[in-house]
């Protein structure tokens, strides 16, 4: 379970302070599919970074399972990202020179975990890319690259999957496929949090959290 209480995030831009999040209280249950929507600048990405232990709140508390993120050391934050969280980005961020197989394996390498070949192949099969194992990212379509990114996010069997605009760079057909994939993962027991501008896709999640000016206006 993820629990945010009174979370505020203030960034400093020179002398100016930018309030990205203002008093966020949010509870996300295990195996829940939550979509976060809101206009640009509402604080969606800032919230995602805090949920993913990439950033810490300026005030308030963030509980990931039993652990309080704001009390974690750098090493513990890295450990949490490795074991509990899988990230999917809008721009995919695959490494161009590495094969699909090695891209998917990368988080396991960072975790010093010898991922088995079969394990990676079954992940690629799950996302429908079993025939693309040795291809380079440049040889894939946008939808395929995002599916590789999802397989990569799952390689360490995290509890939470955070997807930041996962369909933002895709056409309708591929967006549907990616959403379907996230939905199927949710049905397998993953907690999925998805930031999106796509209201239609957002509406198909268990719950829609709407942000505006750093505040939750609807949940």
């Amino acid at each position, binding site marked *: 379970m993820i629990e945010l209480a009174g979370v505020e995030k203030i960034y400093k831009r020179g002398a100016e302070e930018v309030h990205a999040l203002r008093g966020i209280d949010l509870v996300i249950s295990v195996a829940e599919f939550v979509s976060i929507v809101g206009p640009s600048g509402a604080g969606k990405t800032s919230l995602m970074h805090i949920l993913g232990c990439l950033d810490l709140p300026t005030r308030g508390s963030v509980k990931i399972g039993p652990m309080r993120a704001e009390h974690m050391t750098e090493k513990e934050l890295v450990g949490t*990202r490795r074991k509990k969280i899988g990230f999917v980005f809008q721009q995919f961020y695959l490494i161009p*020179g590495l094969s699909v197989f090695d891209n998917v394996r990368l988080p396991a390498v960072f975790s010093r975990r010898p991922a088995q070949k079969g394990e990676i192949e079954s992940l690629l099969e799950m996302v429908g890319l079993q025939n693309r194992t040795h291809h380079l990212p440049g040889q894939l379509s946008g939808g395929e690259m995002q599916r590789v990114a999802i397989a990569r996010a799952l390689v360490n069997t995290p509890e939470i999957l955070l997807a930041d605009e996962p369909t933002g760079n895709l056409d309708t057909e591929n967006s549907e496929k990616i959403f379907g994939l996230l939905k199927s993962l949710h049905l397998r027991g993953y907690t999925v949090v998805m930031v999106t501008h796509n209201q239609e896709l957002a509406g198909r999640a268990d719950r829609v959290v709407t942000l505006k000016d750093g505040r939750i206006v609807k949940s």
Partner: protein
Amino acid sequence: MVFLRLAFTNLARHKTRSVLTMLGIAVSAAVLLSILSFNKGFHKGLERELQRTGLHFMVVPSGCPHEVASLVLHGSVIPKFLDLSVLEKVKAADDIEFASPLLVSQLPNPEEGRVDLVYGMEMQKIGLLKPSWEIDGKIPEGENEVLMGSEVASHRGIKPGSTISYPNISRTFTVTGIVKKTGSQDDAFIYIPFVTAQAVFKKPSGATAIGVRVKDPALLTKITDALSEKVPGIQIVTMNQVMNSIANLAASAKALSLSMAFVAIIVSGFGVMNSMLMAVFERTQEIGMMRAIGASRPDIFRIILKEAALLTMTGSLTGLFLSVTGSGLIEAFVRKVMPYVPGGNMVSFDAGIALLSIAFISFIGILSGLYPAWKASRISPIEAIRG
């Protein structure tokens, strides 16, 4: 292994930049390795020449004794001469095995547009003066008979029994033998009987130097001290002293060359730093992504450092290859610019020197990668992903 592949693919993304940086390292590695290998080869060559000579010391006119002695070895016109009365005094000294006069000069042949290096020596003492020589043919007996060094003979297509003419001095010499290749300066001389040299160079009572061998080398200092006291107007140079002064000259050249090589290495180190920093800035988002998917700061540090190490190692190995394949060019250049170079191979490659050079350059390269690696490890994943 994935980290290494990652490093390799990252370098391959900007081939031109990586190749240019790597070439910078390769050139500095080649320069360093060549200088060190040359130095070793030079000393080996000097030792070899020292062992080849049958002399323990040379008596030369007072002045700059080391210069005269090395010119005798190298072959040049020396403006000062010893009076032959000195030879008798040297011979009469205690513990002298033999003393033999040497007259070295250049003999022009205007018709053929050539100047020959001529070495006048007592032919009957050739076995004592040049114990390591092997002669194809026979030792000259008559005053118009000569020996020829292998290099000059092969250059002019001369064989034992051939004749060489000098119309300007109205002389024709018969080449009775060719000295087999020694790999030293000896290959470049024409050896004529000492009395002939005196006549040709119009020095009936002069010699360039007197080569001396003592009965007991352990008494060398005692003998030379006594001789210096007994015979005025001479200077004595032991073969060790000649070789040491040549080695000292070479050491100064080595110090200068090494300084230049170090500057080149430092510059290539900055090249590595610049290249790696550019790569880090260009891959900020990718580094941010890696942090997000579980890479720690030390992981990022290691990835970037491995890239620097890979670049430097490849450069060092290329430098090693360049140095080995280009050693002939280096040697030819050195032979042109140095006043005295011993014969044989000048560049002596040694696994220890190669390893040391590669290790040193790799160390500098990795050192240059530290700052970009640290910079990369400090990249904030949020800022990076946000772009």
